């Protein structure tokens, strides 16, 4: 019998499946095959990170939130304001974005997570609306309705400038997404992550086995906020602009849609749902933006009623049927 190679041992320990390499290969290929679409590509990658952040709270911890944009937007404005006021170093900007978003996540989590169901949903919405309105009014800092002008983002490591075609932005975003994914995967497969599923399924029993429910929910909420903040910071830095939409209701709502298309609670739902949504939307925007709203709305209704698990759910159902 042949000895297991070092790679195989590593893969087994981390439960790596060969298919997991697929998204990364696709992303790398995209860089070479679609040079004219890198700006959109970079935004897709950043949004995948945002969707992963939402999946952590939604899919794993079962917290239904309509306010994820609060953290995304906080991250975006933090990175943006820094770059517009003289500190354009991108990596430290991202760290600042993560920190700011995590703080907002922690503070709002303390208030919001005491409720559940509609009360919780409502409060997440109010928090996001509150922050959006603050960004609107505090326009001496944020630029308000006009948007944050004058962002100057320095080259990465002093060498790689952000070019008009989005090449640097794409690779930068890809690298950050990769790191974020590694971290998310680690969290999800850890005992902490496993306990989240337990909390989601039956919040009443968990304390009985010694799991501190409230603390765990707050922890995942904060972590998710940090991820969302990083995604927001990426968008700000790569587009060199921050508008009020980063905090808006559509930003909060669309990430839910993207997750359900791909599949909630699977971590890879983000990798499928986000590109599908954004690419189709991009095509529709040119052809007819009005119809986009109609079809995506219809898709959502049909998905909920007939194909709840999204694309990944359908794949699983198909495989189960093929095995029979």
């Amino acid at each position: 019998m042949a000895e297991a190679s070092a790679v195989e041992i590593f893969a087994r320990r981390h439960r790596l499946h060969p298919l997991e390499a697929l998204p990364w290969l696709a992303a790398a290929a995209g860089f070479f095959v679609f040079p004219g679409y890198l700006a959109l590509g970079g935004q897709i990658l950043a949004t995948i990170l945002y969707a992963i952040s939402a999946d952590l709270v939604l899919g794993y911890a079962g917290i239904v939130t309509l306010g994820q944009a609060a953290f995304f937007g906080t991250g975006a404005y933090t990175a943006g304001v820094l770059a517009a006021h003289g500190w354009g170093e991108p990596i430290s900007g991202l760290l600042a974005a993560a920190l700011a978003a995590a703080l907002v996540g922690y503070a709002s989590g303390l208030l919001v997570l005491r409720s559940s169901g509609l009360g919780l949903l409502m409060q997440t919405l109010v928090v996001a609306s509150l922050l959006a309105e603050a960004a609107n009014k505090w326009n001496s800092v944020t630029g308000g309705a006009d948007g944050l002008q004058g962002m100057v983002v320095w080259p990465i490591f002093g060498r790689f400038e952000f070019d008009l075609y989005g090449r640097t932005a794409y690779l930068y975003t890809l690298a950050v997404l990769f790191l974020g994914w590694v971290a998310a995967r680690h969290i999800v497969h850890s005992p902490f992550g496993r306990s989240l599923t337990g909390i989601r399924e039956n919040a009443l029993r968990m304390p009985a086995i010694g799991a501190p429910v409230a603390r765990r929910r707050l922890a995942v909420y904060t972590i998710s906020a940090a991820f969302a903040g990083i995604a927001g910071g990426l968008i700000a830095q790569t587009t060199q602009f921050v508008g009020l939409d980063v905090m808006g209701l559509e930003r909060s709502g669309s990430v839910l849609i993207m997750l359900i298309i791909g599949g909630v609670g699977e971590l890879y739902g983000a990798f499928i749902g986000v590109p599908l949504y954004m690419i189709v939307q991009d095509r529709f925007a040119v052809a007819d933006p009005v119809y986009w709203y109609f079809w995506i709305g219809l898709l959502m209704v049909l998905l909920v009623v007939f194909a709840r698990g999204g694309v990944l759910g359908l794949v699983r159902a198909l495989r189960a049927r093929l095995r029979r």
Partner: protein
Amino acid sequence: MARSRKRFAALLAFAPMALPLAAMAQTVKIGVILTYSGPNAQVGDEMNKGLDLYVKTHAKDLPPGLKVELVKRDDTGPNPDVAKRVAQELITRQHVQLLAGEVFSPNAAAIAPMTKQAKMPFVLMNAAGVSIPRISPYIVRTSFTLWQVSLPMGEWAAKHECKTAYTAVSDFIPGYDAQGGFTKGFTDNGGKIVGTVRFPLANPDFVPLLQRIKDAKPECVFTFVPAGKQATAWVKAWSDTGMKEAGIKLVTTQDVMLDEEMRNMGDIPLGVVSSGNYSVAATRPQNKAFLAAWDKAYGTSAIPDFTSVGAWDGMAMIFDMLKATKGKFTPDQAMAFFAHWKNPNSPRGPIMIDPNTRDIIQNIYLRRVEKEGGKLANVEFATFKMMKDPWKELNPAK
């Protein structure tokens, strides 16, 4: 059989002549960014009609073989992020040679840095924020600036209409500019501003705001809101709260007294004085010719307004440049041409570009709303001749 072979041979004889023609055929791609969807689509539509009409009626003026292709994209409203993304796509994906359009100042300001980075000439056809041409040397404007339009309004109001005024504007770049210009013109001529407010851009209900202003008892109220439905809501609230009856006069810019939108305001605007660069009711022959072409293309139920004329003139400037350069130009050559462009025959009167600022110099008219032929019209009664942008005069670039 033999006849068709002969015909074929005849065609072949002419073929070599066709080759140079084919080589000469050239298409200039122009990226047009306007608002085609959402609540502000009205304005985008007006501009679209204006530039399409110019292209249609003047395509024959271009050198033979030279064609213009308009690549149109939607910025969906005052959404700077969308506008920026769309502009980037036009530059990197569609490889346009010129950018044109833009309704909203925040959008134009977001696009501006990119035009500098990509050396892409951008013909601003509406956005009126004063400092936008300063952000990039590749921007030229054919519409107007809000200081240019509101300063004369303030000056006239102080001299003829009221001693005290309250200013209330939407909270974004054009609002600030309108407020600033009016205030300077008003206070420089002896007027006193008794109150000032900036309200959110997305404001559904103006009644409480106007009651507040009414309680401050100014003689005039100056306002600026985005052209269209908000203007109607404002004017109706001005009447509903009794301000009109109490004698508090409304003074404003052409955005609020939009020729097309006034149809929805009933008789309320009668007597309101506004300042602007174009009114449909203008009697000069160039306007009559423009209106005739417009009616022929779009029917008499569609009315042009100052945004249509801004687009029309912008297209005229582009066409003049294409004729002068025969369609072959570098960005710097195009900008050099634009900076010295003049048009004595615009529907709004004589206009020219200021070579120092790349902004527009034109007549500003004061108009009063009167009834003409059973319909409301902005009738021009005073002219401020060939005005430069006062803000840039007062704030020279360093």
